[in-house]
């Protein structure tokens, strides 16, 4: 009897504990306040701060508070799939409700990123209709906004017809116009803003390393550039995020290859007598000349054609591409894993389960702060264990956008939310200390959480323009991170890097596929060969050369019936995604890389 009572009491206690600990929450908005529905991969801290601050801002600007109904279904992959499913289903219901026949392939066509083939007028009609209608009662995913994720995911949503313009591009609302003046369209090859997509926070990719693990591995010079991650001493100690799972990570890999192409061009130009300080200007001039040459050739131009006097320069660019792939391969060989978890690399490095890793800046900085040891008399802030740094040579600066969705049921409030996110008040949430208040005791930052993200607006960072500099000085005093630090300021980081779309712009997709075939699907064979390529820890050039041979595979071009050998190099790489079946070339590449690695492991 007593025992039964005890058991019930224990169970009751366990269930009661959360009720006892429960904190009362501030009311976001008054009853009856308008609501918007937002789908987002952002974490609870971001959701909390933006919901509360938006309500305050909305009351100040539009007279009422506002509520946010967050829809959380996982990461951007799940969101993308969800949007496709919702739009396909509601489009079908709307189409058939008009007495029209739903064509074969209609479900794929309405969410396709490219128009249907010309021989399917029924699908073309459906495809166009889907892109013209913007009515929540007809075609809608019942969500107003897509907030967060990478620009790749938002541009993809636009291509599939899910995104609409909140206001005419040349006639935004006054509040939006003020904000958009502070946000450039493109920075260092990254798109930060389009008529449907609005970047609002930015992030860079960098290196994290564990100080103690480096000591264990007897590495006295910490990593400073992406090249350092190819050092064999890091074998199975590099945490890498999977570039096939995220557009922003794939962009970081593209930049890594781009950087190697820049290095190769520099080497070539210097060998031909160009001085160090003239290299960048010469590259820019060469690229301009090649663009002009391309324009003069019109439709007859083929990738890689350059004026005869730039042939050596072009060869260097193509060599640099191969160097970049070799670097990706080497980092892949050292990789402990390719994870799809955004936080894993920084967490693992902070606890020493990876010595070094590639991660997004704010995860790296956050984790470095929380990984510090307990305070001691000699180190009152705790001993540093993990360091985050931006790599030498620069990195891509990608944005987290917001997009208004087609058929938004609460469009007006959704537009207000975009205005808010881009406004100074919204941007402060990303970087201000929690609880920051102004002279009038008004809350000007987040209530509870330090989000430690970098705002996108120009006026949060140092500038030579007095008005922008004044705003920066005001923001700086409240920011958690030092916004004047050139290793944090995204506008400074972006300057280190000049992006030439001709080099890797068309190679973005194929680099993802190549990384998968070369490093992930053939990981075991790659590692075996990598070990053989480093007898006693020193590189064996013969084996390394054998490993780095890119495959020539037999493939059947779409529309052809006969397979032909296809080489993989800078000129041919973009053709794979356009001209060949994905499953076929991935299978062929994976098999070829595995065979190459096995051969190399046998001694080349």
């Amino acid at each position, binding site marked *: 009897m007593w025992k039964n009572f005890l*058991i019930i009491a224990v169970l009751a206690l366990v*269930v009661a504990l959360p009720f006892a600990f429960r904190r009362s929450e501030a009311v976001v908005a008054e009853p009856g306040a308008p609501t918007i529905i937002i789908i987002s991969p952002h974490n609870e801290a971001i959701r909390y701060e933006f919901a509360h601050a938006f309500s305050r801002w909305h009351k100040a600007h539009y007279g009422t508070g506002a509520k946010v109904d967050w829809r*959380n279904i996982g990461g951007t992959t799940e969101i993308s799939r969800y949007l496709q499913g919702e739009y396909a289903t509601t489009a079908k219901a709307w189409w058939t409700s008009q007495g029209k026949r739903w064509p074969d392939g209609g479900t794929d066509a309405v969410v396709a990123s490219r128009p249907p083939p010309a021989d399917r007028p029924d699908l073309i009609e459906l495809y166009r209709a889907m892109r013209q209608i913007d009515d929540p009662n007809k075609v809608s995913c019942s969500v107003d906004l897509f907030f967060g994720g990478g620009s790749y995911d938002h541009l993809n949503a636009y291509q599939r017809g899910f995104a609409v313009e909140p206001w005419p591009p040349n006639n935004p609302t006054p509040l939006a116009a003020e904000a958009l003046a502070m946000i450039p369209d493109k920075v260092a090859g990254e798109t930060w803003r389009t008529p449907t997509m609005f970047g609002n926070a930015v992030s860079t990719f960098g290196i994290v390393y564990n100080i103690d693990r480096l000591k*264990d591995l007897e590495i006295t010079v910490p990593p400073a550039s992406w090249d350092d991650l190819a050092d064999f001493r890091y074998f199975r100690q590099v945490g890498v995020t999977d570039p096939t799972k995220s557009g922003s990570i794939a962009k970081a890999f593209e930049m890594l290859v781009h950087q190697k192409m820049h290095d190769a061009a520099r080497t070539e130009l210097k060998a031909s007598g160009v001085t160090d300080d003239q290299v960048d200007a010469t590259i820019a001039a060469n690229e301009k000349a090649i663009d002009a040459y391309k324009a003069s050739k019109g439709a007859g131009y083929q990738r890689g054609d350059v004026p005869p006097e730039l042939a050596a320069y072009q060869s260097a660019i193509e060599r640099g591409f191969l160097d970049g792939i070799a670097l990706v391969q080497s980092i892949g060989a050292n990789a402990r894993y390719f994870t799809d978890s955004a936080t894993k690399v920084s967490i693992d490095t902070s606890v020493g389960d990876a010595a070094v890793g590639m991660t997004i800046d704010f995860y790296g900085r956050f984790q470095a702060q929380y990984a510090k040891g307990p305070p001691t008399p000699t180190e009152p802030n705790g001993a540093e264990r993990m360091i985050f740094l931006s790599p030498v040579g620069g990195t891509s600066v990608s944005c987290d956008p917001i997009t208004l969705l087609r058929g938004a049921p609460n469009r007006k409030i959704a537009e207000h939310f975009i205005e808010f996110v881009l406004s100074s008040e919204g941007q402060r949430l990303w970087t201000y200390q929690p609880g920051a208040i102004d002279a009038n005791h008004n809350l000007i930052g987040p209530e509870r959480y330090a989000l430690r993200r970098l705002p996108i607006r120009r006026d949060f960072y140092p500038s030579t323009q007095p008005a922008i500099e004044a705003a920066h000085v005001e923001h700086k005093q409240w920011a958690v991170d030092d916004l004047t630090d050139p290793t944090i300021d995204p506008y400074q980081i972006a300057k280190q890097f000049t992006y030439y779309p001709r080099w890797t712009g068309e190679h973005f997709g194929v680099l993802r596929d190549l990384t998968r075939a070369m490093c992930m699907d053939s990981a075991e064979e790659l590692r075996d060969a990598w070990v053989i390529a480093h007898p006693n820890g020193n590189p064996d050039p013969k084996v390394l050369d054998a490993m780095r041979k890119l495959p020539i595979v037999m493939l059947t071009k779409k529309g052809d019936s006969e397979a032909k050998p296809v080489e993989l190099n800078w000129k041919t790489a973009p053709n794979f995604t356009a001209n060949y079946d994905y*499953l076929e070339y991935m299978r062929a590449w994976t098999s070829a890389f595995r065979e190459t690695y096995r051969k190399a492991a046998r001694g080349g």
Partner: protein
Amino acid sequence: MNRSTAWIVTSIVTAIFAVGFLLPLFWVVGGGFWDKGFTLRYLAEVFRNPIYVEGLFNSLKIAFGTTALVTCIAVPLAWMANRFDFAGKPLFQGLLLVPMILPPFVGAIGFQQMFGQYGAVNALFGLGAVDWIGNARYFGVIVLQALSLYPILYLNVAAALANIDPAMEQAAANLGCTGFARFRKITLPLIMPGLFAGGTIVFIWSFTELGTPLIMNYARCTPAQVWDSLKDIGSSKFPYALVFVMLTMSIGMYVLGKFVFGRGAHAMQSKAATASTTRAARGFAAFLVPFIFTVVCFIALLPHLGVVVTSLSSPGSWYRSVLPEQFTTQNYADALGHAMTVASIKNSLLYSAIAVVANCVIGIALAFVIVRSKIKVRGAVDAMAMLPLAVPGIVMAFGYLAISTEISNFDTVKQSALLRQIFDVKINPTLFLVIAYAIRRLPYMVRSAVAGLQQTSVTLEEASANLGASGFYTLRRITIPLITANLIAGALLAFAFSMLEVSDSLMLAQQQQYFPITKTIYELFQLPGTGKYIAAALGVWAMVFLAATILGASALLGKKMGAIFRA
């Protein structure tokens, strides 16, 4: 069960199963066979690409290895628990079941804190930065899986052993058959239904398990490849074909296993007189038996211990040391005090409880058809009931989501607030979450009930019928009491795993007020910096609650944990 009743029950349950499982499954997976018309090219690709063939081979190796190891752990433990009384037995019997309630997300953190390069194990033994996770590979996967899955087989074998009439073994002993020979010739055949029930679940689970290979960075196996490729489902239909192959192989292995091991179950004419089978462990056994239980429990619970200690650590304080340098209870205040927590606990309890009730009804009905009927399709019904084990949760979640959207677009539903509440997951996901939990956990209930019925002679029910009892009366007064142990075992598994269900919870519960506890753990885990500590605290709460439920269920039945299998 007469033929017409069997057909009626089969039809109803199959219809429920078809709507709740097959429809969402084929809604999604069917895409792998359609590309401007029916096609087998995606299916063929699975076998043309050597990476996927190797993945299948490795997954089979993992499944065989794990099942063998689980058998080596669970059968001796269940046998010792059945035969001996020893110091701490009730506690051990409870602790043995705890490995199956490792909470998601933070379980990997707990494991890493223990076995990471700077983990507690290396610190305790002064081993330096030994890379257990990086080096363990295949053996790491099967050991880790075996240590988390052995409770499933243990529960089933313990129930089966408890159902054996000791007179059988005594008769064998009287005829000179003792020791291992008696175990092999008498005990083993008699417990085969339980062994098969648990073994198939363990086999299919380990064949399709994703979490452990991800923790151990063992990417070349089918579940990891499915997970990888599922990210492409917006642009490629290949992942569906891979899911289909995994599903088909799971069922194929199940049917093969049933053909080889599952035939010729022996039913007992009477139930066990339990008191006569258990004796106090004496001499060396008095030391050895508790020692073995201690070792297994300790090793299997190391990841749980890791989660508990993480939940009590100050951020950054557990590093290259056996224990953290600074402890705190702040993580619990943050986790349990969070606005999401209370609502998510209430939601999880509601969803799981309804799902388990549905499981019991459908599970018993299916078990009757499978064991007590003579209809020809009963083998197919049996295999069908195992299907949910082999489908990745995320695939089912996409299916449920698609169906909800489809139904929500019917005019009648659009115009009715009540119907939208019921059918639109965007407004209220309760119905679909309950269906998802119930269907995905159905195999535990079916296997347990089938094992119970196989060990219970039909003559007892026939006697009841001869004395004039109706079918329902016989079921209520004779059959269900005889298989209560099995039903409790199945229900406990179903409840625990429903509470810890991840994929459906993440995708279907979109609004905060409907989050189940696993989604709250996920949300807290995503908080940068302190997330893993706060999530660990809520994970510990979930573990304590489930452990208390399991132990409480046995105690409230008026028996100790081991004895609930001797109804």
